[in-house]
């Protein structure tokens, strides 16, 4: 078995493939949806997937997975072989979906090195077996026994196969088939090797005995048998004709025991005991005629309609990450070279043209690398189907699911961060948003609720909206709850509807009175906010009482390379994402005012923005402290604006976002910084966190 030598790459491949099979499986089941039977191709495909999972999990010594897959496979084998059998597709689908859930959780356990949940496998396995027994029609067992023929030159051979070699009855069958080429088989024991697979156990214990008549010499026959692969032991005896009507006790007139050469036998035994696998096998004298059976009787099974995509290869994400990083470095190196042409004497005429050429190639390369990391949202949306199916069934609500823009492409990193939030939002919609059937009829709405999941990209952002036509958010309830949990103070009159709705994103907020299985465990919208925030996006909610709620996530297309404006404060360099900058200007001191708390504000075309002095926040020594000496940069995030006061602008550049070293990340100094980057001149620039700058209480 593989357990003692399973290496990481094998395990990784196992996990990767199994996850793919599981996804395919889920797709097939959900596509079968409302049909009352599985299509032939679906059955074949499910059967094949179960079969493969069974094989590979057994190789990895995950016996419980293998056994369960085997039982599920049995079920589908029965369904396939008995096209007329009655079965309930929802019951069978549920089995498969439970199987999928089970595999998913086992794969998680494997990844985290946790123990296997064999109990769950057994429970599910028993349920499947029970169902199979129920639908299995009564089969008839006819056994035939061959009539005997009496002749001279009669031999008796008893073969023992290697331990655990499997399918001993079929091996015996293959032996008979070969033997038929040069001998007449009179009888064999057990006789039911073709009909019953239980005969394999019998052979394992007592060996397979065959009586036959042949013109060949004893030695020749002996070597023929010993050369059959995986035959551990042969006892061959030559005798007179015998009555073969039954497999009773026989007399053996001239017993002659022949076994394999002793040293080989010893070796086999040794390796059996120790489990070590180093076994040399001699391939000495061989049987003369290795003949094979006649052409096959049955035509082959139908071919599978499933065509794997041949033009795709899988690449490890870490390689793509590395490539992305390298291209990032290349972009920086490029600007280093281009920015100081004088230094290396390349100031001649062609330099500019060559630099443009290089820039073109590098930009193209960068685009290509980014596109390689893009994935569509199809797989993510697929998961929603499953959740909706489970929930509507349990909660007794009817919900129609609409998708739009599932072909929208997003960076892989981003997908990982948005899957859970989207699922959570959909769960919320169905659980809290959509009313019960009666409630909907009373409100004059269509009986069936609608949940819409929509994705589209605009500029360098992807927008994903999850909306429902349910009861909408309850403002009073939100305010009351927020107060109860001390999330806000008492002055709520000035709050806009939008601000009130956004309270649900605060940690520890959950308005549902009853906690259900699917949502409302108090770990809710704040987690959504946090996940989306981590990748530089934000979430907003809009709701109309009685008409529904819609939550929109705005996510940057990629998080690795951004367009940045580099600015200087003292001898420090900072980078502001260009997407956040609204304008910059030299302030006119006439427009600068101070409010009663001493905050500096500036009036710009009738709007008043707070001024944030970067040199004060990070205690940077600089000669520029007068507003009129520096530059103000107006930034916007979440519809809030502030003015950053900086010494000067350096210039715009594409920068590669690198995360801060762990040590610095943990210190308070890292507040307000999302990452760092290298500038063209080789110096380090800190990338400012717009969210923090517009929201935190800084003066």
């Amino acid at each position, binding site marked *: 078995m593989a357990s003692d030598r399973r290496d990481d790459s*094998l395990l990784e491949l196992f996990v990767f493939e199994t996850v793919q099979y599981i996804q395919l499986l889920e797709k097939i089941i959900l596509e079968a949806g409302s049909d009352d039977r599985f299509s032939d191709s679906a059955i074949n495909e499910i059967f094949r997937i179960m079969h493969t999972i069974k*094989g590979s999990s057994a190789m990895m010594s995950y016996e419980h997975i293998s056994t369960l897959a085997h039982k599920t496979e049995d079920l589908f084998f029965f369904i396939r072989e008995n096209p007329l059998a009655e079965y309930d597709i929802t019951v069978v689908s549920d089995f498969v979906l439970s199987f999928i859930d089970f595999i998913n959780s086992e794969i998680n356990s494997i990844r985290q090195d946790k123990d296997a949940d064999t109990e769950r496998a057994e429970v599910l396995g028993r349920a499947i077996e029970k169902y199979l027994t129920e639908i299995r029609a009564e089969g008839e067992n006819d056994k035939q026994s061959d009539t005997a023929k009496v002749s001279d030159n009669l031999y008796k051979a008893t073969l023992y196969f290697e331990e655990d*070699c499997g399918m001993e009855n*079929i091996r015996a069958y293959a032996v008979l088939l070969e033997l038929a080429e040069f001998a007449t088989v009179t009888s064999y024991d057990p006789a039911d090797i073709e009909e019953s697979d239980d005969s394999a156990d019998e052979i394992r214990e007592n060996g397979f005995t065959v009586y036959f008549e042949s013109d060949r010499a004893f030695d020749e026959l002996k070597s023929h048998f010993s050369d059959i692969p995986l035959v551990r032991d042969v006892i061959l005896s030559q005798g007179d004709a015998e009555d073969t009507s039954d497999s009773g006790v026989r007399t053996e007139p001239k017993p002659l025991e022949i076994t394999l050469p002793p040293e080989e036998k010893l070796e086999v035994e040794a390796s059996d005991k120790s489990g070590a696998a180093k076994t040399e096998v001699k391939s000495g004298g061989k049987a003369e005629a*290795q003949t094979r059976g006649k052409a096959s*009787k049955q035509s*082959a099974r139908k071919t*599978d309609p499933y065509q794997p995509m041949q033009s795709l290869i899988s690449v490890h994400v870490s390689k793509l990450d590395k490539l992305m990083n390298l291209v990032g470095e290349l972009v920086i190196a490029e600007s280093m070279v281009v920015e100081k042409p004088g230094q290396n004497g390349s100031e001649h005429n062609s330099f500019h043209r060559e630099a443009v050429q290089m820039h073109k190639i590098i930009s193209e390369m960068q685009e290509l690398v980014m596109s390689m990391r893009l994935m569509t949202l199809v797989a993510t949306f697929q998961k929603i189907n499953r959740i909706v199916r489970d929930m509507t069934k349990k909660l007794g609500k009817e919900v129609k699911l609409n998708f739009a823009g599932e072909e929208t492409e997003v960076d892989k990193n981003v997908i990982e961060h948005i899957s859970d939030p989207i699922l959570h939002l959909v769960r919320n919609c169905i659980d809290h948003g959509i009313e019960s059937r009666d409630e909907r009829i009373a409100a004059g709405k269509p009986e069936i609720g609608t949940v819409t999941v929509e994705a589209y990209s605009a500029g360098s952002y992807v927008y994903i909206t999850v909306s429902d036509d349910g009861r909408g958010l309850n403002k009073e309830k939100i305010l009351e709850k927020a107060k109860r949990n001390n999330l806000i103070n008492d002055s709520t009159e000035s709050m806009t509807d939008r601000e009130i709705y956004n309270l649900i994103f605060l940690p520890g907020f959950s308005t549902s009175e009853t906690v259900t299985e699917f949502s409302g465990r108090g770990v809710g919208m704040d987690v959504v906010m946090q996940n989306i925030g981590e990748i530089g996006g934000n979430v907003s909610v809009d709701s109309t009482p009685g008409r529904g709620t819609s939550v929109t996530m705005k996510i940057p297309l990629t998080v690795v390379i951004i367009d940045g404006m580099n600015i200087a404060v003292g001898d420090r360099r900072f980078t502001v994402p260009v997407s956040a900058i609204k304008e910059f200007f030299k302030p006119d001191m006439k427009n600068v005012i101070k409010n009663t708390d001493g905050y500096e504000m500036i009036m710009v075309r009738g709007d008043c923005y707070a001024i944030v002095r970067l040199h004060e926040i990070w205690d940077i020594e600089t000669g520029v402290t007068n507003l009129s000496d520096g530059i103000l940069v107006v930034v916007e995030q979440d519809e809030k604006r502030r003015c950053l006061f900086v010494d000067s602008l350096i210039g715009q550049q594409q920068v590669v976002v690198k995360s801060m070293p762990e040590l610095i990340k943990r210190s308070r100094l890292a507040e307000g910084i999302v990452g760092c980057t290298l500038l063209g001149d080789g110096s380090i620039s800190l990338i400012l966190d717009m969210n923090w700058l517009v929201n935190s209480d800084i003066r």
Partner: protein
Amino acid sequence: MYTVLVVDDAAFMRLAIKNVLEKHNFKVIADAKNGKEAVEKYIEHKPDIVTMDITMPDMSGIEALKKIMEIDPKAKVVMISAMGQERMVKEAVLSGAKNFIVKPYKEEHIVKTLLKVASEK
């Protein structure tokens, strides 16, 4: 050194079999992930021996076996089967498969079987 063509739709199994064989001085000269590819690769490489999975998309192992036997009646094909596929293994044996291995297999079983089958005339 015997040359081997490994046929299995699961990359995992291909790697697992390859690992075992190469440890024991076989040379895996090619692999294939379905029956169709198996036939093509067989013609291209003429391996001494083929290990053939049974259940595969796009032409099963049995069909591939039959095609290969048609092209080369001397071909040495060893089926790789999982438990519970007795009927198909039987069909394979009838169609000319030299022998078969049952998953999960012992390393020594696959090595012994292939050595014996390969050394046959």
